[in-house]
């Protein structure tokens, strides 16, 4: 069980020289990143730069092979943990492409997941009534239909419902570090605001968020403490909120050119 007190100075996640391959192709080529409690980090990058590889590797997806480097979570070796152990330690991944689970209802699924997490934290199973109340409340906040929790997970959900359902899970499971993998893509502006509200609500001194996105649009609603630019498997530039705006104005080519001409700014 982890202690969950707020600590702004102690790093929650430390990624050091991370190399990840899928099959024989190396996608992350020495990535460095430190996330402290209370912080929101945005990782931006063009298609194919390795954004999803980073989140999937951190969550422990089997086909993502870590060939070099290390990842510490609260000082513990994250890479040794099974995906479910990472989840129980407080890591959560909102999927870019949520998976359909036919015949498994949202409500039962989340209840089973929450029980597993609570057991790991040494807590009792909460009452069913409280759980249902919490679920209903969070679903309402996210503008999800009440009936959705009775449906099979992600089956027949619209694109927007799938993304909001990921955030619903985050709100209910209450992790410590949320990895949001392009949660903003495919959302219309109203849904984007609803999701951003939920993310802002989640943002607390004892939590951290790693938000991966192609566009800076969501950053208008969720203000990051740090923005990192990921190109070709490495973070090539880091800065504040302004970096995202500059990227939007000048495009990724601008950064790529800057990097190639040797003006890399390290983290």
């Amino acid at each position: 069980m982890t202690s969950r007190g707020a600590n702004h100075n102690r790093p929650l996640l430390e990624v050091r020289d991370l190399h990840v391959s899928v099959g024989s192709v190396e996608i992350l080529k020495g990535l460095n990143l430190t996330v402290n409690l209370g912080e929101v980090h945005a990782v931006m990058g063009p298609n194919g730069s390795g954004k999803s590889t980073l989140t999937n590797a951190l969550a422990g997806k089997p086909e993502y092979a870590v060939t070099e480097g290390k990842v510490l979570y609260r000082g513990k070796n994250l890479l040794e943990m099974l995906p479910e152990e990472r989840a129980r330690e407080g890591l959560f991944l909102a999927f870019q492409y949520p998976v359909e689970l036919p015949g498994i209802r949202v409500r039962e699924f989340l209840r089973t997941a929450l029980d597993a997490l609570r057991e790991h934290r040494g807590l009792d199973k909460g009452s069913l009534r409280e759980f249902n109340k919490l679920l209903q409340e969070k679903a309402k906040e996210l503008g999800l239909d009440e009936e959705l929790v009775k449906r099979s997970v992600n089956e027949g959900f619209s694109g927007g419902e799938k993304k909001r359902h990921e955030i619903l899970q985050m709100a209910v499971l209450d992790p410590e570090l949320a990895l949001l993998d392009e949660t903003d893509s495919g959302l219309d502006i109203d849904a984007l605001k609803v999701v951003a509200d939920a993310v802002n609500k989640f943002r607390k001194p004892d939590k951290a968020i790693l938000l991966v996105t192609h566009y800076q649009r969501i950053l208008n609603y969720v203000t990051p403490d740090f923005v990192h630019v990921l190109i070709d498997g490495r973070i090539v530039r880091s800065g504040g909120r302004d970096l995202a705006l500059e990227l939007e104005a000048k495009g990724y080519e601008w950064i790529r050119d800057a990097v190639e001409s040797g003006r890399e700014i390290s983290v």
Partner: protein
Amino acid sequence: MTQAPTKHDRYLADFEGFERDVAARGPEWLHELRQRALARFTEVGFPTARRGNERWKYTNINPIAEGTFSYPFAAGEVDGERLHTSIPWSDDWSRLVFVNGLHSAALSSVGVGADARSLAEALRADGQPAREHLGRYVTIEDDAFAALNTAFVHDGALVHVPKNGSLDRPLHLVYVTAAGAGPTVSYPRTLVVAESHSRLTLIETYAGFGEGRYFTDAVTEIVLGEGAQVQHYRVLMEEPDAFHVGITRVHLERDSTFTSTLFARGCAIGRNDLLATLDAPGSSCFLRGLYLTSGSQHVDNYVNIDHTQPHTTSRLYYKGILGGKSHAVFGGTVFVRPGAVKADARQEDKNLLLSDEAEVDSKPSLEIYADDVLCGHGATAGTVADDALFYMRTRGLDLNTAMVHLIKGFASEVLDKVEVEPLRLSLDRLTTASLPELQPGLVS
């Protein structure tokens, strides 16, 4: 088709004893039917699995043909308490229990108002409605197993729901084989006549008690009069080494509705042959099935739906979960006859393969001889999706729990539709209990 005569000798010898000792007191028309059925059986012989014989292409019944199963002249015994705890059960259901094919009055209990009785008893009395309907839908020309069952037709269930009548609670027909000395065969026979605008919920359970090989050759005929509604469940929980061939024929009149769910736990060879004939406008059938096979089991579902008239509707949704080196077959055809316009038919068979060595042959087909119809079919076979497992694990579920949920989720798409709650809970438990056999190492 020629067969080695030895494959019939056992049955011929048994038939003589059967006619002399067991069936002697039956009516003359029945005696004649049996004689004709036996002659038909010896003429056609057991079917052969081979190309060209579409009905039996993927199922080799040689182990049955060569099994020398004998007719159990002595009635077997089953402990009531054990029966109660082993099969789906509710004290609220009416039930007729048959042991080795013979009615057990001690284990049966039929509520007031239900005309459900032992077929042997009914045949000794006036014989109606058995005389009118018996053998009319499953004919001795159907195949060797139908002929063989008919040759030995004696006991089973006769259910008659009169016009506008309804049974206030589900009726459970329980066919049990109690293993005795040597391999035995039983010939359960069920005849259900639901007169016009009647309603009935019927559960047929076939189960084995005790180790060993045996053979169940069952025939069920169900007739639905105008506007009748029959909800039917068929639960197969034969012993792992048993052989089961079940033939069901359903005949639907105008505006009648037949809903059926099959739950089949695997056995050495299990064959479920179902034909629903939508023989009048407005008739519809909804057929669902879930089959679970493990080890070297073999289950063959052969389902045909015959749309003979306009404005008829059918839906078929079968699912299989296969482990080990087991083999499942799904076959059958939706026929739309000339003139059966506005027929609306869908059939789908989905399979979940838990092992590389499990195999499924799924061949749903359509034969359409009418215009202006809406028909579709599909079959799939796949393994547990790695993406789904990973997704669940990122929510904190361990691999075992994730697997159990995925497999049960797959099954629930059929089981959730079971409207009789104690039965649904029972089938859910049976599925859970089967998981360690389906996927060794899995803890349910």
